[in-house]
């Protein structure tokens, strides 16, 4: 199991930058995006992203819309919602739409790390199951 590949999405660029550095220092691979659109474009380029940390409140395409779009295109990827206190309801709404969990800003980095790990593990399990199913199918079709 390799280190998780993270995408950070937030319109607050300094926040994203610092957070990226800290996560990288903890051994994660990180890519940053500063809007929902940017995130979708970059996801198209980088197919290896495992977990997306997504701010709820953003100008333009907001967190919920972005989440729905991501889940539509890449259902296997896990999303963690990042929210201010005022938007907890939105975050909960996001979980109904398939987000893995939510965290409140400013968040403790250790908690974030453990959540990321959990999400990554879940995604990994899913992938393994899918792989296994594919192999089984492949084996059957080969007709041994």
């Amino acid at each position, binding site marked *: 199991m390799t280190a998780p590949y993270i995408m950070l999405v937030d319109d*607050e660029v300094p926040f994203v930058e*610092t*957070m990226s*550095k*800290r996560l990288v220092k903890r051994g994660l691979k990180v890519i940053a995006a500063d809007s929902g659109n940017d995130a979708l474009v970059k996801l198209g380029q980088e197919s290896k992203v495992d977990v997306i940390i997504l701010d709820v409140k953003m100008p333009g395409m907001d967190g919920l819309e972005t989440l729905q779009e991501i889940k539509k295109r890449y259902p296997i990827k896990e999303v963690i919602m990042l929210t201010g*206190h*005022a938007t907890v309801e939105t975050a909960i709404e996001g979980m109904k739409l398939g987000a893995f969990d939510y965290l409140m*800003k*400013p968040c403790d*980095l250790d908690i974030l790390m453990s959540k990321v790990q959990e999400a990554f593990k879940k995604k990994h399990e899913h992938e393994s199951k899918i792989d296994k199913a594919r192999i089984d199918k492949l084996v059957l079709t080969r007709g041994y």
Partner: protein
Amino acid sequence: MNKDKHKKYYQSLTRNMILTAIIVSFTPMLLVICILLQQFRISYHEKTYAHLSELVQKHKQNIDSFLNEKLANIRFLTVNNSFETLNDKEFLQEKLLILRRDYGNVFVDLGIVDEKGVQLAYAGPYELENAEYSDADWFKKAMRMDPFISDVFLGLRGYPHFIVAVKKRETGRDFLVRATIDFMAFNSLVQNLRVGKTGYAFILNREGAFQTNPAMEYQPSHKGYEFFWTAVEKTKNKILITRWQDDAGMENLYAVGSLKDGQWLLIVKQLTSDAFSDLKRMLNIAVVIFLIGAAAIVFMAFYTSRRMVRRIRRADQDKENMNEQIIETGKMASIGELAAGIAHEINNPVAIMVEEAGWIGDLLEEEEFAQGENLEEFNRALKQINTQGKRCKEITHKLLSFARKTDATLKDVQLNDIVTEIVSLSAQMAKYNKVSIETQLQKTLPYITISPSEMQQVLLNLINNALDAMEKTGGTIQVSTKISEVESEHIVIIVEDDGPGIPEANLLRIFDPFFTTKPVGKGTGLGLSICYGIINKMGGKIDVHSTIGKGTRFRIWIPIQK
């Protein structure tokens, strides 16, 4: 200054109301009274005049017929008897007896007087045979006029009387048959005529001398009466009614009619005040009624105006208070919005700051800094930044919850259920503080339509505050609900503790946002202002009483909707 202006405003309002009430009530009352009185006066005058006029008319006829009757008696005697027969004392005495028998003592005596004025024969109580009348006034007039009735005079006998004389011519010589009419008998005709208390009648001759005894003692000069003569002559035999001031300065009412072919006047005189005494009494009654009415009107005008203005004043005061409350509520609402905005805007920078501090911490872990002199200090400073960042976060979270609309969905709820729920939630916490929570709930509370989560928030805030206040001392919190006896159609919730109480200076500001007495970092000062806002929104009221050392009592009134 403002208060002065208000006072003046209410004073002028009171004055205007009083004046309006008085004018509006007085004007019709005065008009009605004046018109009625005037009408009454006119008709009363007419009635009085008519009565007097009729009276005088009747008596005038009486007296005239009395005089004519006496004259006719003597004329009958004269015409039917010759001088020879008449000039006989015995015959005259006989005739006098017959006359006295028929008419009472009206005829005093009878006599025959020759053309030279010597009484030839006489029948009567006095010794007047051969009496000499040639110089007497009546004799001269009687010789000229036939028949003749004299004015009243004293004559030879020194006693008031008057004479009825008839002239006859026989054998070329004139002679007179005369009779004396008793003054008293004649006088009684007039003297018995009385009107009211002061009205009496008398007869005057051309010279203005009394022909009867006036009933009243005083003797007025008769100068004024000359006026009557001219006036009566003008009215031609009708009854004249006039007012005249007599010598005593009293105004009198006179009714005058002419007698004896215009030689005498029959006058009825009555004091005006007496004649119109009924009118005066009526006037007095009217004045008394008017004064009582006026007093009542003035009193009522003052009383009702004062009361009305007092009510208006109270209403104005209420309105003002309401305005203040609305402003207060509005202020709180805008503070809430502001707080929410600030909280949101601050949240992101704080997050960045905390992240940056975290990043520095991460870097410090690298070896090149491990031996750094001030590493310890750096770490402490970073930890502090982290702690304060978290504190900021907590504050912004609370601010946001202050502004954020909690679940405001209205439901029909039993208030006691909410109280029980919150009390059981707080019970654990209370145990740590050595506080016991007691409830006293009225079982028959009606259902009310409120937002349960808002109500929970309010109760939780109040109980938490009480718990905080009694952190060191411990004690009892009493939560009770009942139908309010002070405010009708309200349920009252009372949260009462026996903690240290709240100083008076703080009591006034207790519902202000950001007002707190808790140590820095412990309280945001928003709890009670949230409660205040919620209760206000429900249309209720919240108040607080506190005594230092004895405890604090919060009361919440919530209206019962129908």
